[in-house]
């Protein structure tokens, strides 16, 4: 039994909860921080957070599944978020998304081959005068044509490989 509990314990999540005084109202912040550190939210992390905050796993599941930001699958190496909302649609966001899905053989909200690239749809990056907009590994880009997207993604991959 002890071994089982040890295995379920997720030390980084426990530490992050402690930094927020184990307050349930800080749940969103805690989930953000765990995801930033780990790349996603594992079962072990969620179990540990539930224990630390003294709320049920069902409640945590309810919150995690409600918000689009939280990921329950391991992330790919690079994340490309494409804005799919109206202002970007007006300047070709749909064609850009179709290009990206084909280019990286990745469905939106899914990982491409070898977990290299994942594509996500976002509804507005607040760059609506300079669309189509994309966020690549956290960096915002405007006026993104298919050619520019390819070049930017390549740059991001190279940057990561150089470390």
């Amino acid at each position: 039994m002890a071994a089982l509990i040890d295995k379920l314990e997720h030390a980084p999540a426990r530490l992050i909860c402690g930094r927020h005084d184990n307050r349930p109202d800080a749940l969103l912040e805690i989930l953000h921080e765990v995801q930033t550190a780990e790349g996603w939210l594992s079962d072990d992390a969620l179990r540990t957070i539930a224990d630390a905050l003294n709320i049920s796993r069902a409640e945590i599941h309810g919150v995690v599944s409600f918000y689009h930001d939280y990921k329950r699958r391991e992330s790919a190496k690079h994340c490309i978020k494409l804005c799919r909302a109206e202002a970007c649609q007006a300047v070709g966001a749909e064609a850009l998304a179709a290009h990206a899905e084909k280019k990286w053989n990745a469905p939106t909200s899914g990982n491409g081959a070898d977990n290299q690239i994942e594509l996500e749809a976002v509804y507005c990056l607040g760059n609506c005068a300079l669309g189509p907009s994309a966020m690549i590994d956290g960096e915002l880009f405007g006026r993104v044509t298919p050619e520019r997207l390819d070049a930017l993604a390549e740059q991001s991959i190279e940057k990561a490989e150089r470390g």
Partner: protein
Amino acid sequence: MVGGPIRIYVPCDAAAISVGADDVAASIRREANRRKIDLELIRNGSRGMLWLEPLVEVETGDGRIAYGPVADGDVASLFDADFLSGGDHALAHGMTEQIAYFARQERVTFARCGVIDPLCLADFEAHGGLLGLRKALAISPTEIVDVVVASGLRGRGGAGFPTGIKWKTALEQLSDEKYICCNADEGDSGTFADRMLMEGDSFSLLEGMVIAGRAVGAATGYIYLRSEYPHAIKTMRCAVDIWREAGLLGDDIERSGTSFDIHIRVGAGAYICGEESSMLESLEGKRGEVKVKPPIPAISGLFGKPTIVNNVLTLATTPFLLAKGAAHYNNFGVGGSRGTQPFQLAGDVARGGLVEKAFGVTLRELVEDFGGGTRSGKPIRAVQAGGPLGAYIPTRGFDVEMDYEALAKAGAMLGHGGVVVFNDTVDMAHQARFAMEFCEIESCGKCTPCRIGAVRGKETIDKIIAGENRAENLEVLDNLCDLMTNASLCAMGGLTPMPVQSAVKHFPEDFGG
């Protein structure tokens, strides 16, 4: 400017960065070093002329001179053209504040945006910052509320509720704790004013929140900021630290007896959290599900305590009301729409950006005079005003005045002031379908008309597009829209029919009509 190194401004606004402002700033520094020129490079907010970004400004004795859009590769030629003394160049636009787009605006809420370094307190004060707060600290809470009521300021988040009335309600509540919650969950497509303000004049929001805190007797404020805005999050976090350090947040601010602190909470990608009751649930660490009103938040809000929920622009405007007086603000605008509104021109528009104008400007002036038509050069077919829940307006409706009442009369709404331009390639049936799809994706699921209505709406539009029993399905869609409008708990389900029905009404040809 007298003496000292030459001052250059390169925006740190996310939109400017998205088209290379960071690279341009680095190049200017590098080139200046290489040429052994001493210059001071300031990262300001954006002036809002986003088609000119990255817009580089040089300070001269007469004012700032604008160059843009500057690419990394233009930097050397700018130095060659002696832009540091305002030299002529293909990218030069003369004095920034004399560019027609800018000169024709009435900048109140955005008066400092793009002018100052958003994280320099001295710069903020030199441009009128803290005047409103100091005035507020010197008068009673009731007097502050009276000023806000008299100004006629209405909530800029979209609902347009009179701000002063909301504050008065919260002030009247007897409670050991009250909260000021800033709604910075600006999720509407076509809007970016909140982001621009937080990145370009961050302290004005803090100033407004402290004023609100003193006015209603709250000691704690939260800024609920969407995760899609990493630059704004970073700037606001720095701004709060600077204010705490300067004693403008914390206990007994400037020995006034008022204590107030602000915390920043980051959203997690749920559009619905821009709805106030959903935002409050989210701030409590829960699913962002909409709550039934009453009670209204001003009576029972965050953690069941009286809570003011105001949009970024609403709060950031209040220091101006205190500093310049209610009458000054009230003089702008028309009818029941007092003051100025920061409009945002987006989509396929030649000169996209932020236009702050008194209420009453027409949509045509915004789209044609300011916007200059489409960026693609194709004819305009429609505009969506007021975000994803706003109406599609055909070109023949462009003479509508942009104020709460006139737009409502035209079957549209102001929302958060977004104006998205579509060219003649747009398929309005597709846009109507997207409105339903967006509602399906973003509905909180609490009420049936929204949760199920959106799915059925999308399916019905699919049938119409496929040519299946068109007339009947259009009727089904219309009935469904009426049901969603009348029976949904909040604006998400209640207003999704607006883009759908306006598209069907104004563009029947796209629905096989």
